[in-house]
Structures are given as structure tokens and as C-alpha cells.
């Protein structure tokens, strides 16, 4: 037997399964949260949730993830009931809790599957609770409704068919008994039996069958599997004709057809047992009235592409940009007059950059999915902490590189948790301060040049300068006297490792692993984090993130034999300095005076311990780079030139040693040598 679980079919399907299920789970989560907010579930949403659970159940069963399949089946049953019976007074919040718990379970399992682990989660306890929830609902329901549906099954117990043409009914001259056995594993044997009966209706005059109650499914499926499906019929057709007809049955394993004599036949067809079949036909459609599900309106004429292919494409374009530089800037061409070559090279350059833009844009995704995930966080936090918080989303259509989106989800989650836990006050406290009872968190995304700014603003109590300073002192985090620090510097200290002002560590945040992890994550994608606060009224955290990671404009500089690349965007100016402009601060740090302002000098050869002959300030070049408000002057041997560079991560054996502050990655230059890409924020940071 070839099962779907066989590796050959399993493997290619797994990706699709994971992708689709995750997408559906996300949609489901949104639905649940939206519905909970509007205080109860609309018929459309119930349909939609039912449909999603149904799909996941089916797919998971195909992949043999029985735990997921069983859980989705239970939720599907619950929503089937809601859809059909439309019970009043549902415990909406309890319902949402259950479904969300289910969603979490499936998420965790999918994650395991994704990472190549066994999906070994057990949802039995949750399944039981969902069943209980359903049975409570059923019991609350109008008992009439139940007895009615029971009556339906009663009606279906004795199924006879006699031809509509009643006069002809008695005239069937041949009586037959047929025993049908179906193939093992074909499922729903009762309906297969029913299907046979349905088709026979067209050609036989009268028929009767055992088991009679084919729709009272469980036992009768068993009976058919064990004893076969027995049909007695009266017809004008010959034995051969009936046999041929029955042989067409799908999944028929065995057919036993025998002729009945008249007495036997009469006995089987007692007139008073006859029930005209039409009556029953109305039953099935009744359940289907609402099968025409209103759509979510999300279908687009898009194709889905494996992300790995996109990453590969991106890599290839990156390689091409490098290769182009290698050709155009090839040292062999030095000093040659190559008119036609230059023309062709320009054309190549144009196409390369268009191609690159295109690939970039393919990888851009709106940030909305990430933003919407936050609804769930807000909901759960509010419920646990008993606070009231509204989440407002602005600019969710802003597009960001897919890789970056993946990296900002966790930091955002953490910041939102922090806002609710530490920032926003409890309702009574808010009312006492004359604020609206319910707090608001505003999540904004906007484009700013080659960056995206994401702000998380809450209207809570703001940051407390005194307490931050106190805590910083306790942990020895102060780098200069308190009085010299302006608010912004004080507030920024919450991002230092090991900082947490909340004395009671809560379940959600404040384990002291918080903010510095946020910073690390954001810095990993080349972004930065800053915070502002108005005591008593608001806190705003701003994440500044590059639109894309992969290809940047860079200025190549040389130090000794080493090459470095500075992102052009952060360069303010470059110039040759004079010894006279140098100043030393009391600690011996070099500073330079430019237009009446003092900037620290960073000697790259010292920072990275590179040997070079150029150590006198007037021999080399100064590149002034900007990071937020701070600017520093980088001292290097010489400028080499500007070009687009493809950012590559440092090799794993270097990364494993921990993040190297001041280096964002590396790149290949036109001549094939490696250049290290400087990370300005890391260089400016003196920690």
C-alpha cells in the first residue's frame, strides 16, 4: 500500500503544508481577535473558522499529524454546532480562549515540524475542554432542537424505496438479493451503500436493504464492513443486467448476487413498511443551506514562490553586482581607451541595477501581518493583567524586506508587552489621573529615506528618571555624573544589559533580559533603537530599520592592507585634517575641531589593530560619519572609491564568537578582495 505518508510524497508536500497551515492559523487568529472585540462571533466568521479548521484537519490528517488533526476536528465540530444551531449567549471570551489555545498548540507543533522535530505535542486535555464547552452549549440549547434532530435520524432508520410510479411497483417480476462488500479503507461505507441505492432507484421497482439505518453511521458502517451491505430488490431487469450495474460500484470488493423466489420476495416487501424516498431527500440539503460561504475576500491572482528560491535569486543578483564590478573595474583595463566597452558596460550596469531593484521589490512585504500579530499580545496581556488597552495601527501597508520583517516581530512583541506591563496604568489609576479609562498603544510604520521608522507609543505613565538613575547606580551602569546626563541619555539606559526597574518581575516582561535583547535583535538587521518619554503621559520607542539588508551603497576605504566599507548614507563628509586642529581630552582621547564643534576621532588602525605606515593625522583621511545625533571622525589611510556592495554575513566561525561591535558584515570588491563593512552605531558606541 502506498500511503501519503510515504517519504516520496511526504517531503515535497511538507513545505506547502507548513506554509498554508501557518497562513491559515494567522488568519484564524485575526478572526478570533476581531470577533472577540466586537463582543461576539458573526455568522460569517463562524463559517470561516469552521472552514479553516476543516482544511487544517484534512491536511494534517494527510500528513499523519494526528494530534493537530484531532484538535482541529474538535474545534471544527464546535463551530459546526455554532453554525447550525446558532446558540444564544455563548461565553464568547471562553470560546476565544479555547480557540486561541488551539491556535497556539498548532503553531508550536508546526514549529517543531518546521525544524525537523517530531510533532509530539499532546492536545488531549485541550480537546477535552473544547468538548466540554460544546456539551455545555448543547445542554443549554433548546431541548426541542435536539429532539428534532434526533427525530430526523429516526426517520432515516427505515429506508425503503418504491418507484414513484406506484402502479408499476408491484409488477417487478424478478427478485434479487445482493450482498456488497467494499474495499477496506475506502471510508464512509454507509454513504457508498447509499450511493448504490440511489443509483439503483433508476432501474428497480422496489428495494429494501440491511442495515436499514445507513445514516446512523457508526454502528452501521461497522455492520457493512463486517457483513456487507445487503439489498433486496424487485425489477424487470435480468440477472446479468443487475450484476453489470452493481459491478460499476466504486471500491466494490465482492458482489454476491442471488435470485429470490416469489414467496421470499413478497415477504421482503411488506406494503406497510413502505416509505416514499422523496421525503428523505429534503433532509440532506437542509444541512447545506449555508454552504455558500461568504468569502474572506482575500483571494488574489498571485503565485506563491518558495522563499529559498527568492533568497537564492537575491544571492545571484548580489553575485552579479560583484561580477559586474569585477569586469568593469578590472585592473587589466587600466589606461585603455575602450569606447565601445564603456558603452556596453554602462548598459550592463543599467540592467543590473534595474534587476536588482526588481528583486528587492519582490522581497518587500507589507508590515501589516507583523503588526496584526500584536493584537493577540495586547489581548492576552490585558486579560492577564486586567488592564484596558487599545492597539492602534498606522502605516501598516509600509513595505519592508522579508528578512527584516522576520527579525522585528520579537522585538515588537517585547516592546508592546513592556508598554502594557510597565507603561500603561490600571483603569482606576488612569481615571484618577484624568486619562481615558482605556490606554492606547499606537504602532506606526513610516518610510524615511532608506529606513523604516517604527514607533511604539503608549499613553502610560512615562519613564521615571529618578528610578532609572537609581537602578543604574545599583548596577554600576553610570558612565558619567547624574547631573550631566540629559533625559534622553538617562532613558537610553533602559536598553543596557541587565537593566530592569520593575521590582516585581511579572510573567510577561521584566525578567531583565528584555530591552537589551530588543536592541541586539534590531542591531542585527542594521537598525537602531531610541526612546523618548514625557513623564506622566507617554513613552515612545522608535526602531529605525534599513529597508533592506542586502545591497547598500558604500564608500571603500583602505587601512594598511585592509579594506573597509562605510555605508554611504551615514557619511557626512571627508577631509584631510591638520595636526593643529587636534585636541586631546583629559583622558587622552583625540578630538578634532570642525567648524567650532568637537568630534571624537576613531583611528581604524588602532581599533582593528591593523598595521599601517600612515599614523600621522595629516597623511591620512578623515571620514565624518553620523549616527543619530552623534558624529565621529574615522581616520583611515585613503579613500578608494564608491560602489554598491552586497552585504554578506560574517562567516559562522567568526559569528559564533559573538557579535563584533562595529562590523556589520563583509563584502566582495571588484578586484575579488574582501572588505569589512563598518557599522557606524557600533563604532560610535564607547561601551
Amino acid at each position: 500500500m502506498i500511503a501519503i505518508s510515504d517519504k516520496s510524497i511526504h517531503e515535497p508536500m511538507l513545505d506547502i503544508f507548513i506554509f498554508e497551515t501557518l497562513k491559515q492559523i494567522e488568519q484564524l487568529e485575526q478572526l478570533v481577535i476581531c470577533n472577540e472585540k466586537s463582543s461576539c462571533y458573526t455568522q460569517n466568521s463562524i463559517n470561516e473558522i469552521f472552514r479553516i479548521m476543516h482544511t487544517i484537519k484534512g491536511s494534517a490528517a494527510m500528513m499523519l499529524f494526528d494530534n493537530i488533526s484531532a484538535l482541529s476536528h474538535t474545534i471544527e465540530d464546535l463551530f459546526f454546532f455554532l453554525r447550525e444551531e446558532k446558540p444564544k449567549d455563548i461565553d464568547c471570551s471562553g470560546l476565544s480562549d479555547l480557540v486561541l489555545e488551539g491556535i497556539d498548540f498548532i503553531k508550536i507543533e508546526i514549529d517543531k515540524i518546521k525544524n525537523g522535530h517530531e510533532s509530539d505535542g499532546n492536545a488531549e486535555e485541550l480537546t477535552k475542554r473544547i468538548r466540554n464547552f460544546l456539551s455545555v452549549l448543547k445542554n443549554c440549547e433548546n431541548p426541542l432542537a435536539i429532539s428534532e434532530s434526533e427525530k430526523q435520524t429516526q426517520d432515516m432508520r427505515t429506508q425503503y424505496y418504491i418507484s414513484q410510479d406506484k402502479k408499476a411497483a408491484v409488477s417487478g417480476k424478478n427478485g434479487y438479493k445482493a450482498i456488497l462488500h467494499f474495499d477496506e479503507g475506502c471510508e464512509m461505507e454507509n454513504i457508498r451503500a447509499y450511493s448504490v441505492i440511489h443509483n439503483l432507484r433508476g432501474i428497480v421497482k422496489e428495494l429494501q436493504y440491511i442495515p436499514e439505518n445507513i445514516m446512523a453511521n457508526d454502528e452501521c458502517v461497522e455492520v457493512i464492513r463486517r457483513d456487507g451491505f445487503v439489498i433486496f430488490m424487485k425489477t424487470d431487469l435480468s440477472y446479468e443486467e443487475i450484476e453489470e450495474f452493481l459491478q460499476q460500484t466504486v471500491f466494490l470488493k465482492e458482489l454476491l448476487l442471488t435470485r429470490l423466489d416469489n414467496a421470499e420476495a413478497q415477504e421482503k416487501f411488506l406494503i406497510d413498511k413502505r416509505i416514499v424516498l422523496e421525503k428523505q431527500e429534503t433532509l440532506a440539503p437542509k444541512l447545506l443551506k449555508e454552504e455558500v460561504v461568504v468569502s474572506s475576500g482575500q483571494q488574489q491572482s498571485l503565485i506563491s514562490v518558495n522563499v529559498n528560491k527568492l533568497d537564492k535569486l537575491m544571492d545571484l543578483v548580489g553575485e552579479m553586482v560583484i561580477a559586474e564590478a569585477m569586469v568593469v573595474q578590472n585592473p587589466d583595463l587600466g589606461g585603455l581607451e575602450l569606447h565601445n566597452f564603456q558603452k556596453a558596460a554602462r548598459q550592463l550596469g543599467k540592467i543590473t541595477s534595474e534587476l536588482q531593484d526588481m528583486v528587492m521589490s519582490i522581497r518587500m512585504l507589507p508590515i501589516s501581518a507583523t503588526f496584526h500579530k500584536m493584537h493577540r499580545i495586547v489581548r492576552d496581556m490585558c486579560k492577564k493583567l486586567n488592564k484596558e488597552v487599545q492597539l492602534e495601527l498606522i502605516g501598516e501597508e509600509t513595505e519592508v524586506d522579508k528578512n527584516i520583517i522576520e527579525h522585528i516581530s520579537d522585538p515588537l512583541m517585547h516592546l508592546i508587552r513592556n508598554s502594557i506591563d510597565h507603561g500603561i496604568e490600571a483603569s482606576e489609576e488612569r481615571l484618577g489621573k484624568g486619562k481615558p479609562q482605556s490606554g492606547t498603544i499606537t504602532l506606526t510604520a513610516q518610510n524615511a529615506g532608506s529606513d523604516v521608522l517604527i514607533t511604539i507609543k503608549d499613553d502610560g505613565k512615562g519613564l521615571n528618571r529618578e528610578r532609572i538613575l537609581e537602578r543604574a547606580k545599583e548596577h554600576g551602569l553610570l558612565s558619567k555624573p547624574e547631573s550631566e546626563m540629559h533625559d534622553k541619555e538617562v532613558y537610553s539606559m533602559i536598553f543596557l544589559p541587565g537593566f530592569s526597574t520593575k521590582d516585581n518581575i511579572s510573567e510577561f516582561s521584566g525578567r531583565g533580559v528584555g530591552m537589551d535583547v530588543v536592541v541586539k535583535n534590531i542591531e542585527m538587521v542594521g537598525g537602531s533603537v531610541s526612546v523618548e518619554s514625557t513623564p506622566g503621559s507617554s513613552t515612545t520607542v522608535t526602531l529605525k530599520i534599513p529597508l533592506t539588508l542586502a545591497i547598500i551603497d558604500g564608500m571603500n576605504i583602505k587601512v594598511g592592507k585592509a579594506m573597509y566599507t562605510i555605508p554611504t548614507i551615514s557619511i557626512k563628509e571627508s577631509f584631510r585634517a591638520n595636526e593643529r586642529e587636534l585636541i586631546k581630552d583629559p583622558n587622552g582621547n583625540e578630538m578634532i575641531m570642525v567648524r567650532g564643534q568637537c568630534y571624537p576621532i576613531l583611528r581604524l588602525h588602532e581599533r582593528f589593530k591593523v598595521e599601517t605606515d600612515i599614523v600621522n593625522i595629516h597623511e591620512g583621511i578623515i571620514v565624518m560619519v553620523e549616527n543619530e545625533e552623534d558624529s565621529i571622525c574615522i581616520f583611515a589611510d585613503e579613500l578608494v572609491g564608491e560602489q554598491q556592495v552586497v552585504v554578506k554575513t560574517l562567516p559562522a566561525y567568526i559569528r559564533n564568537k559573538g557579535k563584533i561591535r562595529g562590523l556589520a558584515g563583509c563584502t566582495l570588491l571588484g578586484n575579488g578582495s574582501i572588505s569589512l563593512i563598518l557599522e557606524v552605531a557600533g563604532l560610535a558606541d564607547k561601551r
Partner: protein
Amino acid sequence: MKRVLIVDDAAFMRASIKLMLERNGFEVVGEAENGLKGIECYKELKPDVVTMDITMPELGGIEALKIIREYDPGAKIIMVSAMGQEPMVMDAVVSGAKSFIVKPFKEELVVQTLNKVLGL
């Protein structure tokens, strides 16, 4: 080669059925993700046989079955159902579905069903 149209809202299911059928000498000529598109595709492609999911957005499989059968009384449609959908499968059978398969299904059962329905 027999031409098959797959109607299912789950990409995973479409891909699974497609893989199974293509490995067994069927040609999948079209895929549709809801009943409405299924009807359109049927009219356009005239497939030999259709596999039709029951629960779909826009238009469910049973409605689509009825409409296709009205358009082409000879249409051969196999329902793709799941446990618990017995009443709907019954309705589908009454409405002219040639047979049905039940999720989770095995490759050989799918192929067997198609062969039988196509009289192969």
C-alpha cells in the same frame, strides 16, 4: 491521458492530489480554489473528471457540483470529503457525484476511484 480538474481551496490538498494523479498517468489540466472558479474552469477545460472539495469559500463543492451537472449532465465529479461530512456527501451523491474519496486518502484509493469512474 485522462484530463483532471482539481477543485480545492487548500493548496496543500491540490498539490497532494496532483502529485498522486500525475504519478499515475493522469494529466491535471487545471486547479481551482473555489466552486465558482471550478465551474469556470470546467466550462473552459472540459476535463474528463473533476475532484471537488466540499467545504470551500465563495461557493461550496456541492453547489458547484449541481451547477456543473446542470451545465453538463455527463460531468464526472468525485467529491473530496472528510469524516463528519456524511450528510453532505449524501447530498452530493443524490445530486450526481459519481463517487467520493475521504480525507485522509491513500494514493491507490484515489487512483482506483478515478479509474472506476472513468471506466478504465
